[in-house]
């Protein structure tokens, strides 16, 4: 009789529940809403308070993971961007417009052995600001690294466009045997050298295009983003629609003397002019 009453006649009704009891998909919507509201109020404390109601172990990481997931699942770009921005602000503990002047140290893939086997040669026609003025390592530097071998030069050319928000400062082929897949790794910094999150990057190739954002992997740096390349495909990269295009970008091999070949990753550093 008790079961009939509590199951059929008067089943339990949840009331006055806290947000941490929400179902996982509703929690995602709650986080997305917190992030969307944050774009309006720029109140990091309020956003932290709201997220604290979900009792996530690491709210910044939860947001970053959700941003990544939302991006992969094709959620609206505005949602991905809002999640990414809040994730980064939380990770840095910064209020907008109050970023410190101390640049965050950046290491592409912290576990990387990080041997540089190639210094890309960068052309500089007619003083184009999109072109790197100086390579990251000199020939002398590379000679000092053990087991390095020379690689074919990579030439990046930018197409004409409007005054860019960012210019390519540096390009380096990062060789890491633990990361053998070819990648485009991008680091975006403001004029003071602080990483800039939420920058949209457009990558295109012959039969397609895709976009990605800086800061979706806070553990690798707030201004960091990466894209997995397919060997033998020629890519073009732009920091935003209408911006200058960096091309050609192709996967490059690392060739240590005593090991088998493996793919390196292009690390491109952009700064605000």
């Amino acid at each position: 009789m008790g079961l009939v009453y509590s199951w059929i006649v008067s089943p339990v009704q949840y009331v006055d529940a806290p947000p941490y009891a929400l179902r996982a998909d509703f929690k995602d919507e709650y986080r997305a809403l917190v992030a969307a509201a944050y774009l309006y109020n720029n109140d990091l404390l309020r956003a932290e308070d709201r997220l604290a109601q979900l009792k996530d172990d690491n709210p910044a990481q939860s947001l970053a993971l959700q941003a990544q997931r939302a991006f992969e699942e094709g959620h609206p770009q505005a949602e991905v961007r809002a999640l990414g921005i809040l994730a980064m602000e939380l990770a840095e503990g910064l209020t907008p417009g109050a970023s410190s002047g101390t640049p965050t140290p950046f290491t592409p893939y912290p576990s990387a052995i990080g041997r540089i086997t190639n210094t890309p040669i960068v052309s500089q026609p007619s003083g184009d600001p999109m072109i790197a003025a100086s390579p990251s390592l000199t020939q002398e530097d590379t000679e000092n690294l053990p087991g390095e071998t020379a690689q074919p030069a990579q030439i990046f050319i930018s197409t004409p466009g409007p005054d860019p928000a960012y210019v390519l400062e540096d390009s380096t082929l990062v060789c890491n045997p633990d990361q053998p897949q070819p990648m485009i790794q991008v680091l975006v910094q403001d004029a003071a050298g602080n990483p800039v999150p939420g920058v949209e990057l457009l990558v295109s190739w012959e039969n397609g295009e895709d976009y990605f954002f800086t800061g979706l992997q806070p553990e690798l740096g707030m201004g960091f983003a990466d894209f997995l390349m397919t060997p033998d495909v020629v890519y073009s990269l732009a920091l935003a629609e209408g911006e200058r295009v960096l091309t050609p970008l192709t996967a490059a091999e690392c060739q240590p003397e005593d090991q088998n070949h493996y793919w390196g990753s292009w690390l491109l550093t952009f700064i605000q002019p």
Partner: protein
Amino acid sequence: MSRWTKFLLAIIVGAAAGLFYGWIVNPVEYVDIGPESLRMDYKTDFVLMVAESYQVDHNLSLAVRRIAKLGTSAPNEIVANALSYALQHDYASQDLSLLQALGEALLTWNPNLEVPTP
């Protein structure tokens, strides 16, 4: 002690033990609930977040979809309830304005004009 007394005593002890277990030892834990079950202050904050995001995207249909998660009442009714709660609990005037602005925007919302999302 009569049989009836023993019987009633057993019932009382059993009920007390059950209440102690359900209230203290292993109280109910809400899991996998929907936003409609949130406490009123959380619901109000939910609506406030919708109002804040609406100021950024000005997407009324998105705002309505979000508010609709809070229950089956009409969206403007949910916003009105949130505004009423906010007024009673001395929310900041800026928050009250946001809720009011969303409520006013919803007055112009016509679901029949919605373009179905593919």
